[in-house]
């Protein structure tokens, strides 16, 4: 069973990474790559609170929830890619024995507190659970940290090799393969890299304190599954012949076997890694796993007193999220992906998984994880940064990969008619206005079929030389501009661009808009 579990972990892990890799232009393989984010057990619950209906979009998660009642936290042990990553990390940093990590045991309630806290916030319609969703964390780290890091090294190395004369051809051959299979787009660079890297680093390095530290003490998805597995029917049964050598107890990833009672399993903690069965010495072979219609119950490590504490903490968090200043200037710059729901709904539904950011990197590459701009909950929402990229006119792919439909899947025709914002010139910087010389690079690139940037041709007489020349002075037509930002991206000024996009004129559909008609 342990071998089966390991294979399952590897298969799911590689499968998720494969899905990640093919989340890119042209996206015509017909596979909905975001499906793996819909494995997250938390999503159907929180989406239910948001929409008050069961969303079949999250069918994979619903199936997992259903089977958890009978089989327990198999998701954590067999499927979750973050869990697998933690196991790898644990091997590298050498997690201590359960005997030593026992001292953290009292923190078990934290994951329940976190889950309940997030639920309370959600009931007050503040949805920030996405920050702690394990699959979202995994995809976020992969998109922003691991993948760019890997491609950076790979590309640098291959290009360096290609400079060595006799290696030029094989190196370029390898480079072509790399470009074909791994990174057809340009090297990605992301803001917020430091914080997202720190977040995942802390989770991974916590393996130094105990095995699966995150899963044992913090993970809200684990907590939800714990609630459901209190009565699990599939049980670990220890036979009479057991001499209590405690080998299984030592090997237990979750420390779910009490030191003084190896016959018992903490069903709420057990993730069915089957390490116990595999370590039980063959001469005893005391452990069997069996289905029983009259299961015993393990109760959740969470008292009423703790619930009060959690409530107070969540109300405080609620307040903190509310009292921040509303920075109008910052809000005006928060250009969202085309087809994003209205800002309130968008904030609630977006789980900060970075799937849209990932696919955008192979298109216009404008989407970035946002920093804290006007409220803490702005953090890591996708934002279109037009100086580092632009929204590609013929692209609608972010909407197609958003797992929660925080960005609606617009058709290309709809997307082209859904402005993200409106461009304004900064005439103090714009070359024709500032220096009375031609430029209009913005106009050249403006993709709308009737250009949203037009220009006046006016005579300019140079006071020094007395010579008169014709200069093209550009301006934006509000009705035509879709806020794609390629004008900002291509503006040849070195630093601050002379044109910028604001959210004015943006079109944000509401959930109820049946855009798919």
């Amino acid at each position: 069973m342990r071998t089966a579990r390991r294979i399952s972990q590897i298969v799911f892990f590689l499968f998720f990474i494969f899905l990640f890799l093919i989340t890119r232009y042209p996206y015509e393989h017909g596979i909905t790559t975001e499906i793996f984010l819909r494995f997250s057990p938390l999503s159907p619950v929180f989406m239910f609170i948001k929409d008050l209906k069961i969303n079949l979009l999250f069918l994979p998660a619903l199936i997992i929830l259903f089977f958890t009642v009978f089989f327990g936290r198999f998701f954590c042990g067999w499927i979750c890619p973050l869990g697998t990553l933690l196991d790898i990390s644990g091997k590298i940093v050498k997690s201590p024995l359960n005997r030593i990590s026992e001292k953290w045991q009292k923190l078990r309630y934290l994951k329940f507190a976190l889950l309940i806290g997030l639920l309370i916030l959600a009931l007050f319609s503040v949805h920030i659970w996405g920050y702690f969703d394990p699959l979202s964390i995994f995809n976020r780290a992969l998109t922003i940290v691991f993948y760019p890091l890997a491609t950076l090294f790979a590309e640098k190395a291959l290009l360096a090799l290609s400079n060595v004369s006799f290696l030029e051809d094989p190196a370029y051959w390898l480079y072509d393969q790399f470009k074909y299979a791994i990174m057809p787009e340009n090297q990605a660079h992301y803001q917020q890299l430091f914080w997202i890297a720190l977040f995942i680093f802390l989770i991974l390095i916590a393996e130094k304190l105990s095995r699966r530290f995150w899963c044992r003490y913090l993970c809200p998805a684990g907590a939800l599954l714990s609630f459901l597995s209190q009565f699990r029917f599939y049980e670990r049964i220890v036979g009479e012949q057991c001499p209590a050598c405690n080998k299984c107890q030592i090997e237990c990833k979750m420390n779910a076997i009490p030191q003084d009672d190896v016959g018992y399993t903490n069903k709420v903690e057990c993730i069915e890694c089957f390490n116990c069965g595999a370590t039980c010495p063959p001469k005893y072979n005391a452990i069997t796993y069996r289905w029983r219609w009259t299961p015993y119950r393990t109760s959740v490590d969470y008292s009423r007193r703790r619930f009060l504490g959690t409530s107070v903490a969540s109300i405080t968090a609620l307040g903190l999220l509310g009292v921040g200043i509303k920075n109008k200037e910052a809000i005006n710059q928060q250009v969202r992906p085309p087809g994003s729901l209205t800002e309130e709904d968008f904030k609630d539904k977006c789980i900060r998984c970075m799937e849209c950011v990932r696919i955008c990197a192979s298109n216009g590459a404008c989407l970035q994880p946002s920093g804290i701009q006007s409220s803490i909950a702005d953090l890591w929402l996708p934002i279109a940064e037009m100086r580092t990229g632009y929204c590609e006119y013929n692209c609608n792919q972010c909407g197609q990969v958003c797992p929660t439909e925080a960005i609606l899947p617009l058709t290309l025709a709809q997307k082209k008619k859904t402005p993200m914002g409106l461009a304004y010139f900064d005439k103090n910087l714009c070359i024709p206005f500032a220096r009375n010389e031609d430029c209009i690079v913005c106009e050249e690139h403006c993709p709308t079929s009737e250009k949203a940037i037009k220009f006046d041709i006016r005579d300019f007489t140079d006071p020094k030389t007395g010579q008169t020349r014709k200069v093209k002075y550009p301006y934006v037509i509000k009705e035509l501009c879709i806020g794609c930002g390629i004008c900002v991206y291509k503006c040849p000024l070195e630093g601050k661009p002379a044109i910028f996009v604001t959210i004015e004129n943006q079109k944000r559909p509401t959930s109820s808009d049946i855009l798919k008609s």
Partner: protein
Amino acid sequence: MKRRQFIRSISLGTAGISLLPVLGNKLLYGSGQFPQAVWVENGEPEQLLKRALQEFGGLKRFIKKGDVVVIKPNIGWDRPPELAANTNPHLVAALVKACKEAGAKKVKIFDRTCNNPQRCYRNSQIQKWAEKAGAKVEHIRPNRFKKITIDGNIVKEWLIYRDYLEADKVINVPIAKHHSLSLVTLGLKNLMGVMGDNRGLIHNNFAEKLTDIDRKILPTLTIIDAYRILTANGPVGGNPKDVKLTKTLILSDCTVSADNLALSLFGLKLEDVPHIKMAYEKGLAKYDPGKLTVRRVTLG
């Protein structure tokens, strides 16, 4: 290094020898047999090209056996061929075949695109058809630009794509389009696709800067694709109404002359278009505009 030089000197030698048949041709048909430019109209891209090359004395006049040829089409935009923002893919493919038949060892195609390169290469359909025809279609690699001395009136040096510089022969294949800044984009402007750095900076004082750089990188041949031309909202276009089916092709070994000829498609005159006018003034043209010999053919 040594080996390279050796090969180079050999190919110089063979170049000398292979000039003979050309001279022979000239003797045979009398000099001035070949026009300085060809204008063919009323045919499909492949037919236009075939006839134009025929009238011009065949590609063999320019391409030697074993040459590495770079074809530089316009692949700048994420637009399908019907919208006339990129060079016609079938023309490019036919040209690849012609180069191969003329003895080219390798035909390379690339362009520094304005939209996402994957999208442009794909949706222009140039990647597909040119690869089928046997070309190596590559994305621009950022480490392959080389700073070259320009010493122009304004531009002193600029980054140019190495594969372009190292090619034995270069064929520039622009599509004829409207452009707000330069009025038209043709052969001279199409060469911006091999320039590195911040190209937007070329836009102010455009005529002077463009001709400064172009002077150093003029191609062997220029073939203007005017099968479909874009008459407004260029160079991106997007509205089928702005596309005109003109079924024309212009070929010359002088970029400036080819560009000058193409102006009539847009109802423009040389005086209207500063960058082409300046190209003449700065001596980029091989032929005098007044005395240019053009063979005009209408296919039927």
